[in-house]
């Protein structure tokens, strides 16, 4: 391997960090850089809900210390957003108007909250639990909030709901069965979830939709299509995640929902790999591309992308099966891990 190489990784989550670790281990000479548009070092997203409610202190969010990167001679660029990729000149353009050159690129830019088209008019009122940066905007407001409205649901949303309930907040949830994207909740499962939730103080609304939201932070008024009216200090949306790939659009790297990669995690452009929840991976068995989420998948894919980038030919497989407990309903996933229980 030549010392001229500059391996650049866009994304400071599990996929990006595991890719970087492998690249450094296998190539001691090359420059390795990790980029994140967030200012916080590598952290456990799964612990964000606990951080919001105060049960997890900031130190416990962090996976690695900055010193460990220095030891490994990995450069970390935090708070720096990649705006554009030019694959012909192998250049990344940052929003702060710096250009940097890569020899090989790993895209591990993760995913962002999915915004339902029907909810776009109310974006101004919605809060998401996607990143530390998002959370810091409203963390203090949670403390003072009395009534909280959640719509959608998804796995994270339910975890959050329980935490808010435990904090003594008055919580209402309007469950969208399709909030679990890329997973779908069957009617049967939904009935069971509702039945289990009815044992708590949480107010559950089903088979309904948002008609209107008015007001301002601390005093929202929500109307549903079935005529239910709710007041809330804060409104959260949990409707699954969608790959974070705006910056590659127009670069020549192919994408659909996510960045399209083959079973070796290589994109349609040479020397560019993608992994983690931003990637949509070809599965030869079903001859289709699928998006994966969950921490263990991201870790696994980061490592495999790095090995293949260095010349290996490893086919990616899903990590072992696991059951996720959603309000007493066991849901089989191949991608979820209860980080908080570790």
């Amino acid at each position: 391997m030549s010392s001229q190489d500059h391996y650049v990784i866009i994304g400071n989550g599990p996929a990006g960090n595991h890719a970087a670790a492998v690249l450094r281990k296998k190539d001691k000479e090359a420059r390795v850089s990790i980029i994140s548009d967030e200012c916080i070092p590598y952290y456990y997203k799964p612990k964000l809900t606990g951080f919001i409610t105060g049960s997890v202190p900031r130190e416990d969010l962090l996976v690695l210390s900055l010193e460990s990167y220095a030891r490994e001679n990995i450069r970390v660029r935090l708070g720096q957003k990649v705006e554009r990729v030019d694959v012909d000149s192998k250049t990344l353009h940052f929003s702060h108007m710096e250009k940097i050159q890569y020899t090989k690129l790993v895209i591990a830019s993760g995913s962002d909250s999915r915004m339902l088209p029907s909810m776009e008019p109310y974006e101004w009122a919605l809060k998401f639990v996607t990143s530390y940066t998002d959370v810091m905007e409203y963390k203090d407001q949670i403390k003072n909030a009395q009534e909280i409205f959640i719509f959608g649901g998804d796995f994270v949303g339910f975890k959050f709901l329980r935490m808010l309930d435990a904090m003594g907040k008055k919580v209402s949830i309007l469950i969208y069965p399709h909030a679990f994207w890329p997973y779908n909740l069957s009617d049967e499962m939904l009935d069971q979830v509702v039945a289990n939730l009815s044992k708590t103080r949480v107010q559950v609304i089903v088979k309904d939709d948002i008609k209107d939201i008015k007001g301002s932070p601390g005093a929202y008024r929500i109307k549903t299509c079935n005529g239910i009216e709710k007041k809330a200090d804060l409104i959260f949306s949990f409707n699954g995640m969608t790959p974070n790939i705006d910056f590659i659009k127009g670069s020549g790297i192919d994408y659909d929902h996510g960045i399209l990669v083959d079973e070796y995690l290589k994109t349609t452009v040479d020397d560019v790999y993608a992994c983690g929840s931003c990637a949509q991976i070809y599965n030869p068995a079903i001859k289709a591309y699928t998006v994966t989420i969950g921490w263990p998948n991201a870790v696994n894919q980061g490592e495999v992308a790095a090995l293949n980038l260095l010349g290996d030919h490893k086919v990616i497989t899903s990590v072992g099966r696991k059951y996720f407990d959603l309000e007493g309903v066991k849901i089989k996933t191949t991608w979820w891990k209860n980080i908080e229980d570790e």
Partner: protein
Amino acid sequence: MKEVNIVIEICGSAGEGTISAGEILSRFMSSQGFEIMSFDSYPAEIRGFGKCVAHTRISSNPIYSPGKQADVLISLNDKHSISQLSALKENGVLIYDSQPTKPHQEDNSVAGRANPGTIPYGVPLGMLAQKATGNTRGRNMVALGALSCLFHLDKDAFTESIKARYGKKKQIVIDSNVNSFLEGFNWAKENLKKADAHSFEDVKRPKHKEKLILNGNQLVARAALDANLTFYAGYPITPATKIMEILSKELPRHGGVLLQTEDEIAAIGAVIGAGFGGKRAMTGTSGPGFALMTEFTGLSVMAEVPAVIINSQRGGPSTGMPTKTEQSDFNAALFSGTGDCPRVVLAPTDTKSCYDATVLALYIAEKYQTLVVLLLDFFLSNSIKNIDVPRKPAKKYLNANIAPKADELKDYKRYRFTKNGISPRSIPGTPGGVFFATGLEHDEYGRPNYSETGHLAMTQKRFDKYRSVLSEAPKPQMVISEQGEYDIGVISWGSSAGAAHEAVMTARKEGINAASFSSVMLSPFPESAMIEFSHTCKKILIPELNFSGQFADFAAGILKRPVEKLNFITGRPMASEDILQKMREM
């Protein structure tokens, strides 16, 4: 109530408005009732494109030192600011221009080079200034506008501060600056998501009396005028020039004279001449000029003519580092020159004491008919603080010459032996008061005399007089506790004293049993007070801004015990953080 203690640095190239933005920020913060201390560093070259940094510390509590690391860096220039990043704290805030005229190559952008953990706010400074005023000159004000929005500063009051700063300029200048500021404020409000924890909302502000915002040089000039200075001769030199500049305007208005001489030897010569003529006279210089003045200082001592020299120290030796601060002229101030030549040396310890020390210097020089060296340094000369209006000197400090009585003039002995060594001095023109004044050794009349006994007696007289100056020494500044016994005693002087006192106060909060001591009068030195202090301390630490520990060696000689030295020659002022760190290790 919440308290603030924050250091904000603005970094740019000469000509980008860095220093004026810093000044506006300081004045605004002071007007808001906060304590401030600010300090600029700029290139030595008179005009150029060198790096400028305006450093301002703002606090709800009294400030003793400028603070080593910045909480906020406002970058007006990527190249210069990159080298300033090492002074930004971990998790510091960076405000930078997000729309430079052309893209940065790899590693040429301050945002790209920022340490991980830094909280960056990109603001299109140039673009917004252009929008507000039609040119990019107002980038500095746009940055202040963004800062004001992010940190919840009073927008209207800030605008007033800007208007006040440019009050004497044309309306178009005032408007451009105000509009740039507002453009920055409004843009930040619309576009920036707050990601840091700094806020000036509902924070403690010290009780606010009328405050003056001045640097050491300005206070020296003001004190000199208040203390009836009538003659100043000098040759411009950084960092002392400002004193001369102010006095060149003010002294004639007060009936005095300012003379710019061809060099420093001429300057001190003229000062001694004026002193001989009965005028309160002073000169100001820095290391290289002080070296030249040494030629003449012996005359002031030998002929017993009042003279005050301000030496604002900079990095040395020789022309050294003109715009960097150092405390390396201690030995030169106390010991330079030939012969047994005692002279008084005063070193103010903070901005406020520059005023008092100047008054004292002029008073002692006149009363004791001798040379007084006032040791400032680049930091003291240029750092700005908001201070209470200084109390005007008491009457006794304004007229201190001990004149001969009528019967003494019958057979006037200008150098008459007295108990304290002070001989009544006649001012030329006094009937019967004619005398010889010479650099040669002399008898009581002033006539040359080289006899063994005569030289001994006259030397003794000069030293007696010098020792009696000790009665005028300001009380040493001490931070002590009721315990009366300490693990560490920090002894400091000059501009390092504030940092030392602050370090000791912080150390005590950490459970380190420490105390501190400093004296404005360095020569003659209040030895017994320092010895007494030293007896209460297990270890002695002496921090100073020179390489060899000039004062530490001097103090160790007095204390007759080993002392721990802590020396820096970084060109930056002493940092309380460094002293504290050393104390933790001791």
